[in-house]
């Protein structure tokens, strides 16, 4: 099992969700996030005064998938979240030791 963590542009969330569903992914968790990378922040102007806003709004998606689904999930996120402009985000894949469904106690890939 692998956890896929992706940080994407907020307006791409619906596209990414649809692409993941199409790839057969059953669930995900989404968090409103703020951050910056190579894109840096953005400049805002209020009454002529410029403010450098370093932390800009992002969406962080988290899902856990079976090895067999991993490549499809990663590709779904990448293609759906891509605009080609700086700031499209990142995808991280992390090993998962255990998964457990709280309602039934099922473990491993059965719990996903």
């Amino acid at each position, binding site marked *: 099992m692998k956890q896929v963590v992706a940080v994407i542009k907020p307006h791409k969330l619906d596209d990414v969700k649809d692409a993941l569903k199409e790839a057969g992914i059953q669930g995900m968790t989404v968090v409103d996030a703020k951050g910056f990378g190579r894109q840096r922040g953005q400049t805002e102007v209020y009454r002529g*005064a410029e403010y450098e806003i370093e932390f800009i709004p992002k969406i962080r998606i988290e899902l856990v998938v079976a090895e067999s689904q991993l490549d499809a999930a990663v590709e779904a996120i990448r293609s759906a979240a891509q605009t080609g402009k700086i700031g499209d985000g990142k995808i991280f894949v992390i090993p998962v030791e255990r998964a457990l469904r709280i309602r039934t106690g099922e473990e491993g890939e059965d719990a996903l």
Partner: protein
Amino acid sequence: MEISGADTAFVLICAALVLFMTPGLAFFYGGMVRQRNVLAMLMQNFFTISIVTTLWVLVGFSLAFGPDNGGFIGGLDFMGLKGIGQGITENWANMWAEGNVTMTVPELAFMVFQLMFAIITPALMTGAFAERLKFKAYALIAVLWSILVYAPVAHWVWSPNGWLFKLGALDFAGGTVVHINAGIGALVIALMVGKRKGWPESPEMRPHNLPLTLLGTGILWFGWFGFNAGSALGANGLAVQAFVNTHIAAAVGALGWVVIEWIKDKHPTTLGAASGAVAGLVAITPAAGFVPEWASMVIGLLAGIVCFLFVSVKFKAGYDDSLDVVAVHLVGGILGALLTGVFAVKGVNALGSGLIDGNAAQLGKQALAVGATLLYSGVVTAIIAIVVKAVVGLRVDEETEDVGMDLAEHSERAYVLD
């Protein structure tokens, strides 16, 4: 004396409109502060209604419009509104007749209309020292300032016996009494309380809710019709003139600000449109009942441009006027007061004639009124701030500034979304 039903109805409606400006101002300012200080901003404005109403009834109205003492301040004869009633007494009518003013509304109507001006004036100052002045300190400042600064200056300019009224300084609806008076007071307090932690470099200082600011601007604009047209004190042609001039200056003020910021900073902004409208409204206030419509366009345009350009001064000079009360109210007020002396024509109002009407001396009178207000309000506000600092302190502690005044001072949060 004859009371006019139409005039009375008009003045009462205008009084309600002017009252509405104070919560409008609260929204205008509230949207511009950080999320954690929005309630503190609203509360300072809203609570001014209670403080000033109480004082005005007890003593403020009497000090402003009571029988004269040397042109400087009214007497205590009307304390507790004694003798101020539903009609027009001979004494009252005679006092106004000395200034060639014929009163056609009940004394109480005039009193309550004037009260609304007394409320919004100290409230205007709150934007300058926003996000760091203790509520306790503000309440005390509002009390002392209303009595020691507002009442005398209102007497000078608007009482028929006031020295600036007699001199012939023109201030239709409060350029000196309201905007310059509050603007210089605001600057003095902002200097004495010091700059906010992190100002100006922190990006945190940006406005948290500009839709609130736009809503407040709309309410201010709407209420300003009562402020300026109502200052004709009657449902008549002069009121119409002031109404039209007010609207023109607000619209063109917004236009001026947005166009210059668009050229300079590359973007037309909502905050710019809101600020320009208010700058235009401030500048037309003293002129509304004295100048022709085309002059309102010029005044509005200049206000939008000059006030925008003045905003950057605080960064160079290093004073933290949080929400630009100085650039908008002080500078806009001075501009309006001086331009009234330029553009006033007898064809609009027989009482006023300025430079373009062949009366260059009017400009000198306007400058004197501006200078006297700056000096008096500046000095007395400083004394008040020193006293308040000694008694309760001016500034919140560092932790309150970090956590936010909403929670620390008022035990509330504005946006509970969880």
